[in-house]
């Protein structure tokens, strides 16, 4: 029935519960990027996103004996990450009243890492730039599929929205990229997906 491979994270949960740090590292490495992307979709800051994700993993390890069943581990982590991101933003709203600088930081789009961008060819840079200019949620959905090759169902879980919602966001992303990049680069994007 289900032709999708078994989630490779399933065996990890029990090992982590038993205090297996290697299993915990595997989980961290598998989900660090996608979690950061989702959180970044809210907070628009690489440093803040990584901090939130690290705090989340720290709590997971400290509380590992209560780690829930593996099937929902992924959903739990993404859900908790989103909660933390939203919580951070709410806190920021308060802080913002006192600091305009914060507002500027929050509303400016996250910058792609400069060193990696220098290595890329012109097309790559153009594509990356166009991706980064997408609206936050559209960008997150697109990046999770593009960079992390997550399925629509996985993205839906990660973002806490329906699969239909994911499809809509990705369609929007493609349309906007086509518009921004013109035909050549747009074809490249299409082929990758």
């Amino acid at each position: 029935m289900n032709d999708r491979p078994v989630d490779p994270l399933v065996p990890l949960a029990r090992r982590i519960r038993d205090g297996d740090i290697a299993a915990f590292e595997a989980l961290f490495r598998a989900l660090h990027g996608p979690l950061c992307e989702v959180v970044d979709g809210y907070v628009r800051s690489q440093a803040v996103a990584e901090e939130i994700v690290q705090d989340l993993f720290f709590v997971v390890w400290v509380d590992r004996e209560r780690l829930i069943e593996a099937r929902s581990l992924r959903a739990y982590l993404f859900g908790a990450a989103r909660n933390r991101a939203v919580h951070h933003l709410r806190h920021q709203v308060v802080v913002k009243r006192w600091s305009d600088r914060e507002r500027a930081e929050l509303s400016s789009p996250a910058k792609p890492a400069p060193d990696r961008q220098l290595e890329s060819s012109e097309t790559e840079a153009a594509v990356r730039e166009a991706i980064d200019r997408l609206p936050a949620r559209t960008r997150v959905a697109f990046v999770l599929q593009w960079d992390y090759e997550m399925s629509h169902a996985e993205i839906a879980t990660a973002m806490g929205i329906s699969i239909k919602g994911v499809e809509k966001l990705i369609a929007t992303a493609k349309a906007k990229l086509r518009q921004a990049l013109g035909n050549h680069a747009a074809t490249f994007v299409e082929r990758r997906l």
Partner: protein
Amino acid sequence: MDDEPTVPRRAWQTDQEWFNLLERITADEAVVRPRAQARRHWWWVGIAAGIVLLLGVSALGTTRWRNRRASIETVVTTAGQRLIVRLADKSTITLGPASTLRYDRSQRSREMTLEGLADFRVEHDPARPFVVHAGGADIADIGTEFVVRSYASDSVVHVAVNTGVVSVRNRVGDRGELLVHAGEVALVHGVSAPLQVRDVAPAAFTAWIGGTLTFDDDEFVDVARELGRWFDVDVRLADPSLGARRITAIYNTPSLTSVLDALGATLGARYERTGRIITFSARVK
């Protein structure tokens, strides 16, 4: 296709972040894990918060020395502190105030040395005996929770067993082992005196874990010393006659002032407080 450019992912610092996380975990690991305790005693969280508020202490102030090669860890609490040590074998030790515990973090050996007060919840493993050296006593678990009280100022080591069975031996000489069962308290005087068992509600020995201060027909000199451990104060007796008076009392997560007031009323004494020095004197009629 080779000519197809690959757009790099955003450069999340996964390696660096994992390293940082690992540092946080290892710094946290051997230390205090109130959460773990809270799982078994959900009420502990509130009480613990109360204790911290009342006593103004935190586990962060705890002194620890590490000898990496031998992985011998020394955990020291100051007056007013309580803290929980989780061992790799999932045994949990709650260390009382003004106490010192030395243990092998690697758990190559499950022998440890205690001076002061501690509650041991032991993951029993017949192949790997869990032994506590305290004063003149060697205490080995047989699947158990037990409290050891062995302050340097006490002449007696108390071993109160809450669940299971504990084996107690003299440090020196061979008077054989004494099996102490749940609900019993073993008394070990000195290093080689005969072992004694008393039937005492172990609750009297475990109440401190939840932040309850109890005195059970204790002389006021001992009460004064105990207050010093709980509240980081120096309680002095202007009238030595007060020292022999006996106190029986239970205080739930008390404040220092409330305890001092109650004791003053019980003794018919008054006290003066100057900084951390508290002086009790008989009330002038």
